[in-house]
């Protein structure tokens, strides 16, 4: 009997601890911040965390202390993910401001323009492309080397995708001077050139540098992928140009979109073994493994089944809620997916998206429950394989 094993992963971001956020903002730390560092240092058994506590006891942290603070934040995030039981980790993007801003800041050709509302009182910083973008050198190497040297788990490096960078940017370069009355073809062609340049001149050199440094898995994050269905071919072109010739495992993460727009274009993704999608956000919280129990999964999983490619990174945790999914709920979501696809080996397991809007307490509980739920599903499937009881 072959053992059923679902690989568990995170997707990307974690909230930054208050001591890290305040240190980088130049704000004084309070006792509560130091207490948090101690609490999590103990809970996660972060080796040597007493050194961090000593560092945080300095009355006023300066620029010289920031690199060490950054390293500690990354170390704490890694231990959080490891202690929760994940097989595949990164550092919760502790060193990055935000997925779009991180790339724009490290590239030539982008200029900041100001804040735009995301929702409620949440805003994001938006830049304009003013010339063909490029980078002087790969910019995530040191971050990766720290992660690789600090964990014994599999490392997956998240990179913001070319299409999302284009879609979330203002265009003051490619669209040309005359835009009023421009045809749809002219607008598409301008965006195609923009995507190609970001892919070839920003993402690809960074990905190559990471692989040369030892990275074995690159995850391209494309939250904007399905927002304009007629532009999904540009998403595919961008992915392929971003990782062409890169000798590593490659996957793509997409979320909060209408996934029907992705097929059949995603069949042209070159060497992308998996799409990691959000499902739990739109699913019921009831237990069960029938279609009516899993409204968030049914339609999209059939797309994976019917087209046969690629594999699925199954989102089983809702990242916009403090609700801690019980292990049984995770189990049933996973069993349902295995049943629809007919092949558990096509499935790996993760939260819907990055968890940075949740507190670490909630994150730990959710991830630990996810891992427990995965073990329950594996046990059910193994028994089914052995013929002792139906799945």
């Amino acid at each position, binding site marked *: 009997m072959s053992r059923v094993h679902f690989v568990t992963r995170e997707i990307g971001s974690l909230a930054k601890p208050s001591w890290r956020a305040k240190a980088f903002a130049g704000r004084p730390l309070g006792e509560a911040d130091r207490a948090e560092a101690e609490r999590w240092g103990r809970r996660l058994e972060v080796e040597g965390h007493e050194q961090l506590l000593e560092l945080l006891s300095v009355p006023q942290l300066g620029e010289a202390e920031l690199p060490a603070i950054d390293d500690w934040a990354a170390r704490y995030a890694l231990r959080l993910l490891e202690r929760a039981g994940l097989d595949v980790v990164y550092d919760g993007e502790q060193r990055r401001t935000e997925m779009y801003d991180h790339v724009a800041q490290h590239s030539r050709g982008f200029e900041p323009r100001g*804040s735009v*509302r995301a929702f409620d009182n949440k*805003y994001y910083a938006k830049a304009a492309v003013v010339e063909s973008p490029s980078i002087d050198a790969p910019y995530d190497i040191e971050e990766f080397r720290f992660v690789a040297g600090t964990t014994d788990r599999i490392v997956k490096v998240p990179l913001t995708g070319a299409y999302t960078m284009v879609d979330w940017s203002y265009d003051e370069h490619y669209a040309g001077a005359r835009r009023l009355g421009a045809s749809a073809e002219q607008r598409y062609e301008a965006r195609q050139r923009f995507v190609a340049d970001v892919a070839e001149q920003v993402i690809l050199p960074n990905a190559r540098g990471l692989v040369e440094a030892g990275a074995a898995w690159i995850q391209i994050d494309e939250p904007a992928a399905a927002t304009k269905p007629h532009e999904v071919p540009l998403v595919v072109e961008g992915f392929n140009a971003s990782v062409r010739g890169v000798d590593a495992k490659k996957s793509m993460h997409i979320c909060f979109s209408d996934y029907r727009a992705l097929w059949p274009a995603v069949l042209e993704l070159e060497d992308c073994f998996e799409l990691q999608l959000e499902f739990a956000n739109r699913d019921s919280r009831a237990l069960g493994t029938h279609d009516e129990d899993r409204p968030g999964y049914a339609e999209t999983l059939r797309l994976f089944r019917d087209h046969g490619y690629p594999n699925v990174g199954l989102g089983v945790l809702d990242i916009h809620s403090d609700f801690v999914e019980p292990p049984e709920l995770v189990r049933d979501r996973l069993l349902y997916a295995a049943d629809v696809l007919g092949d558990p080996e096509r499935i790996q397991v993760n939260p819907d998206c990055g968890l940075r809007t949740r507190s670490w307490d909630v994150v730990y509980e959710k991830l630990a429950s996810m891992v427990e739920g995965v073990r329950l599903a594996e046990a059910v499937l193994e028994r089914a394989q052995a013929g002792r009881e139906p799945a």
Partner: protein
Amino acid sequence: MRVFVPGVYPRSEALVQATRDLDRGRTTEEAVGEQLEQDFQALVAAEEDAGLDLLSDGMLGWQDLFRPLAEAAEGLDARPLTRLLDTNTFYRGVLVEGEPRLRTPLEAPRLPAGRWLATLPSPLAFSRAAQGMASAQALAANVLAPQIEAYAAAGCALVVFSDPFLATERGVPELAAALAELPAVVPLALQLPFGDASPVLAEVAELPVSAVGVDFYATALDSLPDGFPKEVIAGVVDSRSSALEDPNEILAFALELAGRVAGGVSLAPNGDLQFVPEPIARRKIAVLGAARTALGAGA
């Protein structure tokens, strides 16, 4: 040819920071209110400087097109985050928990009577934000109608209904039936932001509204039926681009458009200006004003 700026206007960086600080417990509601007032005054000043024909309060206190009305109505709530069209901005979808009915109308902006416009969701857009769980007619009759009465009593000169979904999801007959529930106390306009309006232009020409807003960064001029009977609110400033438009290009386009429509032309952005940062939005208002000035100089 009138010029005005309906919809949600972007908050200044100071107001953005103030609302962030409020969420994190670092400031007070009063302080945010003071900054909100400053932003409002700055917007009105920018509109006056540009010579706009109608003033807008920029809906600076609105989180999105639906939320304040949903919260002011019995039977409605706003919760699930929903992407607005293909943008990276989200609204909270409306939940229907009972018969929707406006409790108390939203306060009208402090603007001179007869010189201001209001923006509201179209009844059909409101219904779609609620996943159809409340009908457009019921929302028109019991939520939008009393709000319009209140705005009209406070001197509103134009109500612009924003409908981001009509061009793709259709439903003009349903919208027409809902509009019939509204009081005839103030002129009504329908704006179709951010998208190709050509699939519905012939139908919307029959609606009981005095003007129709069209995004001419997505809609070909040729798709406008010859002799279009309604006033066209031409979306000639791109609210999703940081690049500043050329007032002369706008003027030339507006004159060409005017030759094709029977109901006249007004100039406006193609959607809410909240999709650009405030300093850029302010410059875009100035561009509209410059186009208007050039039109007057050439008349």
